[in-house]
């Protein structure tokens, strides 16, 4: 099918290009940065406009703002405990940023900034550094006992400590790769099936009937991607909370 000199170009959608003409060229302002700004504007608008009236019986926008607040609040307090309230703003920002990045990316012609490992790794590195600093501030040098479980035989220390340190260092990698891989895989699948629709559809009248199948798959995939977009933001937030729990309570 793809042998007519036009292979399926599934990765083109992830390429960065300057936007907004002259300004974009000068400051290397890519569509990724544009959609990050869009996400921040959307989140701010949701929270500010949603809570502007502060009605006792909330309207649609206010319910959405309150629901997202309560969802993340319950998540953080449930995982970290009462001390977690201090970290609620951080986790809320992360969750909303990732969620809006994923959701905005599903709009046709939009760019998914969470499909770049540079972005997700920056977020994960932020979590990693914050968690380490929190652990150090709360527990001081006692924090390093995290790398050597209590009661383990001292003889095994040279074996256990490198393993624990690498396990600890692998957290930001797994955190970022999980989000990045999910978003890339979803968008590649969407574009592959969309290309099938065009390819089969160009085969004449029979093609129109044949193209219905990949089109139907794409409709289902968009719904699935909505689920993944929410789920991955949730997983990112809950793993951040779990790491914070570990740092606050040490084991």
């Amino acid at each position, binding site marked *: 099918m793809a042998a007519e000199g036009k292979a399926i170009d599934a990765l083109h959608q992830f390429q960065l290009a300057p936007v907004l003409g002259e300004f974009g060229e000068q400051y290397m302002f890519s569509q990724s940065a544009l959609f990050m700004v869009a996400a921040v504007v959307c989140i701010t608008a949701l929270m500010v406009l949603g809570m502007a009236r502060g009605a006792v019986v909330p309207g649609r926008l206010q319910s959405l703002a309150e629901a997202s607040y309560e969802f993340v609040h319950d998540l953080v307090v449930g*995982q970290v405990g009462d001390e977690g309230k201090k970290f609620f703003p951080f986790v809320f920002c992360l969750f909303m940023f990732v969620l809006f990045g994923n959701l905005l990316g599903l709009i046709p012609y939009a760019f998914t900034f969470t499909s770049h490992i540079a972005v997700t790794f920056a977020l994960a590195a932020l979590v990693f550094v914050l968690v380490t600093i929190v652990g150090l501030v709360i527990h001081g040098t006692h924090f390093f006992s995290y790398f050597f479980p*209590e009661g383990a035989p001292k003889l095994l220390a040279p074996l256990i400590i490198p*393993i624990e340190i690498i396990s600890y260092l692998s957290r930001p*990698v*797994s955190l970022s790769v999980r989000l990045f891989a999910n978003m890339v895989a979803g968008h590649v699948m969407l574009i592959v099936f969309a290309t099938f629709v065009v390819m089969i559809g160009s085969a004449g009248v029979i093609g129109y009937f044949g193209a219905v199948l990949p089109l139907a798959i794409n409709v289902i995939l968009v719904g699935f991607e909505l689920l993944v977009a929410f789920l991955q933001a949730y*997983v990112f937030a809950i793993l951040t909370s779990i790491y914070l729990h570990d740092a606050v309570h040490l084991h």
Partner: protein
Amino acid sequence: MNERDGFERRLQEARAKRGLDKPADGQKGLPAGSWGVGFRAGIEVVSALAVGVGVGVGLDRWLGTWPWLFLLFFVVGAVAGVLNVYRMFSPPRRRP
């Protein structure tokens, strides 16, 4: 009063049986679909392995001991990956 206590206890049991009570800690809050768990386990192993290899190669370059530290940290990274997956399923560790 006695009646009430009995009710609380039975409610607790019923909730526990249905899994309605929130777990105190651990990774129980994560979605538990088989695909999700499998994917997460795979990423845990691969990322620990990648970090191990990265540390090994980095130290080798620095100390000029290629390939010995790479081989050592490859194994350490693999063990750390298995440990990560074990922690995904093991009950939360006791509090000190």
